[in-house]
């Protein structure tokens, strides 16, 4: 697979430019809350606080399954 020269980490600088020029903070909050209200999230006991997830892992002896997603765009 050919990789583009402009790497992902460099693109993150460019995406920061796009983000600040795009939706308002209010719109971003709405998008985030919509994501967190989706059925797949509410169906399972997802932690959204990293510190609390680590505390639960320490208490229960379980490993943390960490899923990274985004809400600012589809």
């Amino acid at each position, binding site marked *: 697979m050919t990789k583009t020269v402009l*790497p992902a*980490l460099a693109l993150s600088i460019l995406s920061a430019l796009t983000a600040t020029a795009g939706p308002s903070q209010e719109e971003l909050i709405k998008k985030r809350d919509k994501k967190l209200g989706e059925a*797949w999230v509410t169906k399972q006991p997802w932690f959204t606080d990293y510190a609390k997830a680590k505390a639960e*892992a320490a208490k229960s002896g*379980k490993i943390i399954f960490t*899923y990274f997603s985004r809400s600012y765009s589809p």
Partner: protein
Amino acid sequence: MSMESGPLSGDEFGDFASKVVLYLNVTSHVKTDADQDLLGAKGGSGFPYLVFLAADGKILAKHNYPRPRTADGFGETLEEAEAAVALRAKAAGGDADAVREVFGQDLEYGNLTAKEATAAVAGMKNLAAEDKARYDGLIANLEFREIMAGINKKAEELGDALTPDAIKGLQADAGKQFIAMWTAKRIPSGEQERRTFYVFLGIGGEAEKDSAALEASIEEMKTWPSNPNLAKRIAEAEAALKALGTK
């Protein structure tokens, strides 16, 4: 995302979920939201991204292609993470082989800073040349990621002041630091890291009028599979090199 309407919604996922602590990190770009830089800190650069963490936040395993994104696939990676936990217990008990293996895992996963890793390697006795070379490449990956994390943080702090010129300045800033790494022969071994490294090395070389760094960047880029963006970057770098009065 298809994972969310698919594997993460199914009943099988519920069975898997009972065996772990579920943590969802959402990049929202809401300025007051916590842990917005955790994706990068845990080695991710896109979505979706799945890792298994210990309670102290260290990465135990990553869920990667070609392993399927299904509850069964997650279960297989969980087994890998559980094996990593057992290995760490062995290392904590003083098993020398386990200590070395855990160190290798921590380097691969970025569970150490470059400084911590360098100090650990300096303290290793009878290290084979092959292992030293491998560790050096992995430590260079850590150093590279730390530099890029610093640059990304500066970019976020600029907010509305992040203009194209400001971006170029940040890239040159990274490139300057990569010139120091390259001069000391600390070259990242990861493919993604290495490519960014050499592109920014050239940008830093232009900014610092360092023809050796610029030449090294061009030589490396010419070994990559061609594409229009790459060809454009090589042409720009060659023009800059010519302007420096070399070639």
